[in-house]
Structure formats: C-alpha cells, structure tokens
C-alpha cells in the first residue's frame, strides 16, 4: 500500500539531512506506527508521503502511484492529517468539508453520508455550521480528521492524530482505525504516546536522526524479554545509538 524506497531529504542546500536514505514497506490491512524523538525526521517523512515536501532522492509509491510522478492519483488514495491544526479559520466547518469533498470528487449522496457519519462520531454536528476560528484545538482536529476520512481513502496518513482529542473521540478514532484496517485498508500514523502504539499497531518503525533504526512487530522489537515499547524506544534512540535501518 505504501512503499518508501531509499528516500532522502535535506534542508539548507544539503547541509542538514532530515531524512537519510530510508526504506519502508507498509502492507494492506495493517496499522503502522511511526515513532521517533523530536526532530528525528517523522514529520518530514510524512510530509513527503503527503506530497507537501519534494523528495530529494528515492521514491514513494502509494497504492501503486508514485507521489512525485503521479501526485493526483497518489493523493486520491490517501487521507492526510497534519500535526498542526492549521486550517482555513474563516470558513465554517461545513464549507471546509464540502471543499474537501469537491476536490476529492466525492458524490453528493456519499459525502452527506460520510460527513454525517464522522460528525456524529466526533459529536460535531452542532458546531459544523460555525466558523472554524470559533473551534477549540480538539474541534479543529476533529474537522481535519473528518475532511481526511470522508472520501474513504485506502491509506490514512495521520501525523499525531490523537493530539487535542478528548478521550472519547480518541477512543472512537482508534476503533475506526481498526475497522478501516479490517476492510483491507492501511493506517500509517505517528505518535508520541507509546502505550497507544504498543496496543494499536501491527508493526512499528522507529526513526532517529533521519534514519530508520528498527521496524517490526512488538514481538520482533522485544527480542526475547518482555520489555515495554517505552524501554525499547529509549534504548534505541539513546544518544549515539543511531543504526542504519
């Protein structure tokens, strides 16, 4: 579903390598957790997958479409939630959702059904007619999530999706992620909440200093002991422990 091959990205004319030759295969039907310390390259990687940042080297293929060569088809296959809550604040929630539905070619009947489904799930029906600038952080996150999911993309790319959500909404989103994968779809998400990653993800990848240092199921990461993901994460991302993945 998502194939990242030898991808690199540098800033400041090549002086700072944010992502350094990473490769990943995320399969259909799995929830993939993408972890790493602050500044490790998570968001840069996710922004390259979403087509926001250009790729210096390598390729990213989404559902058979190369994001650099065929960006429109690749983007149609994914729903993206950024780590910020930046969204058109002067629009109302429904204006924003209709805009997203239009650009993702969602027919009228389907958009109504999906928008209502997620708005009811996130308890946003009453607020959707109000300007987004009047929303709390959590509400903005809910409207962005609704926008990302309403065209039912096979791949969800979620950067810190649980940030700002109330416990009920976070629980419902996690259930929705499970349901999505059970249908043979894929979720690729980053988080700093290791307990969530441990319980939710089929596989986990850890990035540090721009390099993937490990990828595997929880069992594979644990090796033999029953170490928690937290201790594995701390051990692997310790200063000087960067290993080529």
């Amino acid at each position, binding site marked *: 579903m998502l194939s990242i091959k030898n991808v690199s990205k540098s800033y400041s004319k090549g002086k700072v390598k944010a992502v350094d030759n990473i490769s990943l295969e995320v399969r259909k039907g799995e929830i993939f957790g993408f972890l790493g310390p602050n500044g490790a390259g998570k968001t840069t990687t996710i922004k390259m997958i*979403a087509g926001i940042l*250009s790729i210096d080297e390598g390729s990213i293929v989404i559902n058979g479409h190369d994001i650099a060569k065929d960006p*429109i088809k690749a983007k149609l296959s994914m729903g993206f939630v950024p780590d910020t809550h930046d969204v*058109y604040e002067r629009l109302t929630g429904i204006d924003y959702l209709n805009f997203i539905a*239009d650009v993702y070619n969602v*027919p009228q009947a389907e958009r*109504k059904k999906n928008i209502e489904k997620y708005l009811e799930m996130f308890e946003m029906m009453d607020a*959707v007619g*109000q300007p987004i600038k009047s929303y709390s952080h959590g509400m903005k996150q809910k409207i962005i999530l609704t926008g990302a999911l309403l065209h039912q993309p096979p791949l969800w790319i979620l950067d810190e999706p649980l940030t700002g959500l109330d416990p009920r909404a976070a629980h419902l989103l996690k259930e929705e992620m499970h349901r999505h994968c059970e249908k043979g779809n894929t979720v690729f998400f980053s988080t700093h909440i290791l307990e969530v990653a441990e319980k939710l993800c089929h596989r986990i990848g850890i990035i540090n200093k721009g390099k993937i240092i490990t990828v595997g199921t929880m069992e594979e990461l644990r090796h033999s002991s029953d170490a928690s993901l937290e201790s594995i994460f701390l051990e692997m991302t310790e200063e000087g422990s960067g290993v080529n993945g």
Partner: protein
Amino acid sequence: MGKFFSLLKMQINSQLGLSAARYALKHDKKSLWKGLGMGLAILVSLGVFAFMYIFLMIQFHESAMVLQTPQLIITIGAVGCGLFVLFFGIFYILGALFLAKDTEFLASLPIRQESVFLSKFILVLLGEYPLVLFMMLPPVIIYGVNAQKDVLYYLAAAFCMLLLPLVPLLLASLFSLLLMQLVSKTRRRDLILLIGSVILVLVLFIGPNLLFSGMDENDPDIMLKLLQKSDGLIDISGRIFPPAVWMTRVLSLDFPESLLNLGYLILLSAAAFGLVYLLASFVYQKGATAQMESEKRGKIAKLNYKASSQLLVMYRNEWRIILRTPIYAMNSLILVFVGPFLMCLPLVGGSMAQDPDIQALYTLIEQGRNGPVLPLILAGILCLINLMNPAVSSTFSREGKNIWILKNIPVDIRIQAMGKLLLGYTITMAGAIATAVVMAFAFKLDVPVTLLSIGLCALALIPVNVTGIYIDLMRPKLKWNNPQEAIKQNANVILAMLVGGIILILFGAMAYLLSTLITNTVLLLSTLALILGALSCLSLVALNKAAPKAFRRIEG
C-alpha cells in the same frame, strides 16, 4: 518599562526578521543576498516613481515661486504625506492592533494592555517613516537648496518629519479603537468591521472635499485676498491637516515664530498621543479580545452538501476566504470600489466640477468621441488603476500555514492556479467596470466608448494578472503573523505592480505604433484586440507550463 522595551524589541525583531537575517548572515549567505538583491531591485524600480515625484515637486516649486510662496511645496508634501499615512494607517493599525495572530498570545502575557497597544503603535509608526522620507525629502531639499538654508533648517526638518506621521496615525488609532468597540458589541463582527472601515475611508475622503467645496476658487476676490495675505495659500492648502502648516512655518519663518509653530506641532502630537493612549488603556483589550471570541450562532445551521467542479470549488473557496477575512476584503475588494468613487468625487458636483481645466477636458472628450484615442486612453486608465489590486499577486502568500492543504489535495496546480487567477481577474474586472461606469458618468462618456474601453482593459489585464500570479507562485510569502503582512509587506505585490506596469507601457507603445500605421478606427481597435487576445492566450499557456515546477518548489 523593562517589559515594554522587551516586548517592543521582540516585535521589531519579529516584524523585520532581524534574528532570521542574522542567522542567514552566518549560515545561509546565499538566501540573504537573494533577499537583499530583491529589495534592491524593488528600490531601483521605485526610483522611477521617486524621479516622477521629484520632477513634479520641482515644477510645483517653480509655480509657487511665481506666487512668492515657495514654502508651499512643504505644505503640499506634508498634506499629501498626512493623508497617505491616515488612509493606509487605518488598515495597518486595524491589522496590527486587532487582527494579528499574536493577539491571543500577547493577551496571555503579564503585560499591561496599554503597553501592548503602544508597542504595536510604534511598530506601525516605524513602518510609516519610509513613506514620510519618500514624500518629504524632495520638498524639504528643493526648498532648502533654493532658499540656501543652513544645517539648523535640516535638523528642524528631520525633527518635524519624525512628528509628522504621529497625528494622522493617532487619528487612525482613535478611529480603530472606537470602531473595534462597536464591533465587539455585535454578533457579525467581520461584517461590521468591513462596513465600518468602508464608512471611515469614505468619511476621510469626503471630508476634505466638502471642506474645499465650500470655497469658490473661481471667485477673483477670494483668490486676490488669498494672494495678498503672505501665507494665505499655505493656510488654505493646509486646512485639512494643520500640522502641515506648522511644519511649513517652522521651516520657513524666523525665530521666534518658527519655535512657536514647532511648539504647536509638539503640543498637538503630545495631546493626541495622550488622548489615544488613555483611551487605549481602557478599551484596547476589549476590542482585541472580541476578535478572538467565537461568532457562535444560536441555531444549528442548515447544512448543504451540494457538489461542484474542482475549478469552481477553488474559485469559490478563494471568494469565501477573501470575504470573511476583513484585512483581505479591505485590501482586495474595498479599494476596488471605493477608489474609483473617491477619484471621481471632486468631479461630480464637487469643488473641481467648474474648474476651467476640467471644462477643457470635457471639450477634448467631446472632440475625440469618434476617434480611437478616447477608448484607448480610458482602457489604459482602467488598467493602471486596477494594476494596484493585490488580489492576484498575493493569492498564494495569503494561504500562509494553510498551504499544506493546497499541497496535499488531489487537484492539479494548473486548476488551482486557474481558480485563483479567475478570482483575482473577477475582482480586477469588477473594479474596472465600476471605474468605467463612474468615469462615464463624470466625463459624460458614450456607452460604446465605455464598453470598448472595458473590452480592451479585459484583454490587457489577462497577461498582467497571469504575471502577478506567477510572481507569487514563484516565491510566496507564507510566514506571517498578521494577514496584513501577506499583502502589505509582500514584495511580490510591489514586483507584480512594477512588472504589470511595464507590460502596460509596452501595450501602450504598441497601441501608439498601430495608430500611426492604421487610420481606420474599427480596424485599429480590432487589430489591437486580436493582438491582446493572442497575448492573453499565450500568457495562459505559459502559466500552465510553468506552474507545476514553481508549485513543486513551495515547501510550506
């Protein structure tokens, strides 16, 4: 006081990007040189306007010498400067004080609200000094050199120039504070803010017109009385802005009158400052926080799920954002409609309607009614007025942090650019049509002449708008704190205006050349329309080709 200076320092640093420039100086010299080069290019281009202004001032000085009031040049410069500061100041002040994104952050800090107000006021004031220098240096130097003034004159002039923008800017602040008080009490804040600022601008410009319309300039007795009084002309010219008269007297009279007038200038500035500062200490916070409060509506809105095409949705989305962001609406929309109205105001029953020069203009228009010159000149004027609209040349910059949405949506950049271009073109054409209608009314123009000029303008503005959108797409200003910065502090807007101006000059030259070759009016205008149409198509094709590459370079 320490907190205030710390706040002011931070705001200046953030506004001018000093830390970023310092960092670039150490780590990324190339980008620094690029920025400096761009600034220099704009300065050089502005040099053309400076040259024209200096030329105009020299001419004016010569006329004023004949009337034995050479110091009138300072009055005129100062009045123009004061009006400019006041007009643009309202938008700057509203943007900085009430609509900036850091309002919430600053409200959370343990700093007194008047300190926040003062730091923002100083920030706007500092931004006005380049305009003051641009408008005041030529008259001060021309008068100083001709009158063989000494160093003291130039020191006094520098001090007066420091004080000059204070009163108009304080007046703009006063209006803004009062307007925001009103806005904070209403439910539809954005709408009231928009309507309020339009009314303010209209009042500001109708006021001086009314002031002059009370005087019959063609009455020989009045003119004689004015000329007999040594500074009668200065008095009447500075009637709408007394600090201009005081500044003139400071620089032209001897001690003690000069000192007395300097005292007036300082006293008025200090009094105005005291009044506004006091008012701000009571009401600033309320107005600022009103913008942060939600505009929640009582009942649940009826939801509409109607689908539309990608081009249409891009176009409609742009409309919504412009209409619902007061700063964008003020800069892109209001000026389009208010501008033409204000420009023709003195002609419609105002002070200039009976002016012999205007009467001569009417005769000229009457004589050229059947020739090609009139529609060509009118089309040129329509294009030039609407060249100033920033709706197109700031379209990508206005996205700011939301650029991730454009980058992520599965819509070809060519469709996105076309939607944005269409919106900007709609606004500029709406402005052109409004201007044409007002001009037709003011200059008693025929319908065919008006329609022809609108048609030619519609064709000529396509390549101009395409150039504007491409300039912004190449290097959008996405990092800003206040939506005002996306328009007013955006080099792309100035650059697009300059490049658009050059394109229009070339079109003008082409029209002139064609008129020397083709004598038949219909054939001449048709040929011109065909060429402009072909150039428009070419520019659209070029944008379609260049947009994807430029868009790929944007990394928000």
